[in-house]
């Protein structure tokens, strides 16, 4: 469908562009705004919206050009200021970005969006403590804004106040039941509280609501599975260690060792069963294809080679020690870096 040549009214163009941006069709939004700008080249709102569309599509260099032109036309307008702030942070010019966000707050202190954006940028740069009062002000100005509640949840989560954080995300969901981001953030809190089952459900539901969250969700599911894997490995290692110790101090066919080993197997089976139930089959392959697992496979492979070489050259050493060493190595590798759950 060709664009309507009658998009001569800036207002209509902005309405259309916003619809496209809501539908994440940033390319079309830019086309509409570009067309309108040929007829209204000095319209600051059009320029700012164009900058936003470019920023959302990741073209921050060109977004900067548009928003700077808009700011030259309306230097006191807070809207281009906050778009500029966001663009600058994305371009890696964090300090400049935060300063423009601060300026937007000063220019429009009663506009909750300026406080929201400033707080959001502070969280992306890790300044949760500074972001907290800013987000509080945004919420005071717009208590029914779901995004503001969600952001507050993220900040509280970063500060370790997990229960309050979950409450804020839940409030966002109450206000906007389709708020997939809030749902994903609740799942992150569950994962951090080691409620792995709840976390997996939450992640999947979030991606179901908004498939665009899929990549992030897949990563978080992978992190959850890694936590599970480290628990399983620890259980296996503990069972092995205990049974080997018992065997060393008793007969080869010690019933104690058998019981402990059997219990270890049961624990592992239960854990595998839980994972199989919590993670649908169609997600196994995508999760195992994640980068985190690829590196894990490499480390495990290396571990086996090292173990094999040591066994060959040290035949006199009891095998049980190598088994213990292997299990320990596995545990270290699996828990090598504590899995990190992405949240926004």
């Amino acid at each position, binding site marked *: 469908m*060709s664009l309507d040549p009658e998009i001569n009214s800036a207002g209509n163009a902005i309405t259309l562009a916003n619809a496209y941006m809501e*539908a994440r069709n940033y390319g079309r939004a830019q086309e509409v705004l570009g067309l309108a700008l040929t007829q209204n080249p000095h319209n600051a709102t059009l320029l700012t919206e164009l900058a936003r569309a470019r920023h959302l599509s990741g073209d921050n260099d060109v977004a900067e050009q548009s928003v700077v032109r808009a700011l030259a036309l309306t230097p006191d307008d807070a809207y281009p200021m906050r778009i500029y702030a966001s663009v600058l942070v994305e371009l890696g010019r964090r300090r400049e970005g935060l300063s423009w966000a601060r300026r937007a707050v000063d220019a429009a202190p009663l506009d909750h969006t300026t406080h929201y954006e400033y707080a959001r940028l502070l969280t992306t740069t890790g300044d949760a403590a500074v972001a907290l009062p800013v987000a509080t002000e945004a919420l005071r100005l717009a208590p029914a804004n779901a995004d503001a509640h969600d952001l507050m949840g993220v900040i509280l989560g970063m500060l370790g106040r997990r229960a309050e954080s979950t409450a804020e995300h839940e409030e966002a969901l109450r206000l906007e*039941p389709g708020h997939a981001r809030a749902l994903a953030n609740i799942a992150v809190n569950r994962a951090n509280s080691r409620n792995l089952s709840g976390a997996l459900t939450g992640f999947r539901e979030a991606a179901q609501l908004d498939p665009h969250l*899929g990549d992030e969700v897949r990563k978080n599911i992978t992190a959850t599975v890694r936590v599970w894997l480290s628990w399983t490995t620890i259980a296996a290692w503990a069972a092995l260690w205990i049974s080997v110790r018992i065997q060393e101090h008793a007969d080869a066919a010690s019933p104690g060792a058998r019981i402990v080993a059997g219990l270890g197997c049961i624990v592992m089976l239960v854990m595998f069963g839980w994972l199989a139930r919590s993670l649908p089959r169609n997600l196994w392959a995508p999760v195992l294809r994640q980068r985190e697992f690829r590196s894990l496979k490499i480390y495990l492979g290396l571990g086996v080679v090292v173990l094999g070489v040591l066994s060959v050259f040290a035949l006199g050493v009891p095998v049980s020690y190598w088994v213990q060493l292997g299990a320990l190595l596995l545990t270290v590798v699996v828990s090598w870096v504590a899995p990190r759950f992405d949240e926004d």
Partner: protein
Amino acid sequence: MAEDALIRELSAAVERSPDAVELRLHLAELLVAAGRYAEALTHCSAALTQDSANTAALSLLQRCSAALSSPPDKSATFNWSAAEEQVADIIEPAFVDSGDGPPDMENERDLDVLAPSDVKLADVAGMQNVKDRLEVSLLGPIRNPELMRAYKVSARGGLLLYGPPGCGKTFLAKAVSGEIGANFYPIGISDVLQQWLGSSERAVHEIFEVARRNAPCVLFFDEVDALGMRRANMRGDSGHRTVVNALLAETDSATSDNTGVYVLGATNAPWDVDPALRRPGRFDRVIFVGLPDSEARAGIVRFHLSDRPVAGIDPKSIAARTDGFTGADLAHICDTATQLAMADSARSGQVRPISMDDINAAMDQIRPSASQWFDVARNVVEFGNRDGAYDELAKYMRRKRFR
């Protein structure tokens, strides 16, 4: 005010000369322009009593009835039963059951927006699977009304085409329209969305009215995801919500008679379309339009190079090397090759045709553009396919190794 005075004077003149048809029609036109449809309709009826073949009177009358049949005006005092009796023996039914013959335009203004499509499914190269599905789900029932009657089914409801951008969804919709010999009424979001409160909803209603007036008509909504976006995904202050509600009302068979109006939609993101729009009676049939197959790719290349000077071009070989390319990508390759040949001609001063070398050079520069779409589609298939709505897409992606 001046217009009112003119109407008063003309009314007096018509009273003095009740047989002056032209004068009466002029008055009726002024009344229509002033929004006084009921009065205009009386004059049209009177004019038709005197001259039953008067096309201007017929056209005006239909405009009046269309305007009056939309939201009922409680204050109107027009006697409908009397008017119906007056014109019953003069006017032929607006819509005929048979789809034979060229579709009629009921309103001159509609000519600007409607176009009978001359594209047929046979003009769509390849994509046999999609054509078969169109035949089964839409064209077959429309072509065989007696079968529909026998099975007690109707062709109501709409069809949603989805797939990666640039793969010919709009062209297919045109071909569907051409196949059933209906008017083609394409709607983009710029035809609907307007900045003033309430005007978008009015635009939706007017669009459906035009389609109903000109049935049989294929009403084609492009970018349905931007127009009928999931209301749950909208931010609280989105004025867009009411547009979705208007679309739901117009496609609701309980409140609107859409006989002869076939609603087709195209979207790149069916998962972002409001679920209510996909319920029975609305966009209840969904067809996946994937990347063009080899035959389609060869056809697309042939089409884009058809009016250009070419030499030694082998569309089949190009098709074999462009698996994963969209129709738009192929058009881009042809354009780039043309530019290369032109630039070379300008350099050498001798016009030379587009050759396979130019195509090869263009292919080196252009990468398939649909991979980003398939990234999102992969998320949908993995996380959002609990009800099996995207099984066809999942199967396609597995076959094409996108997963």
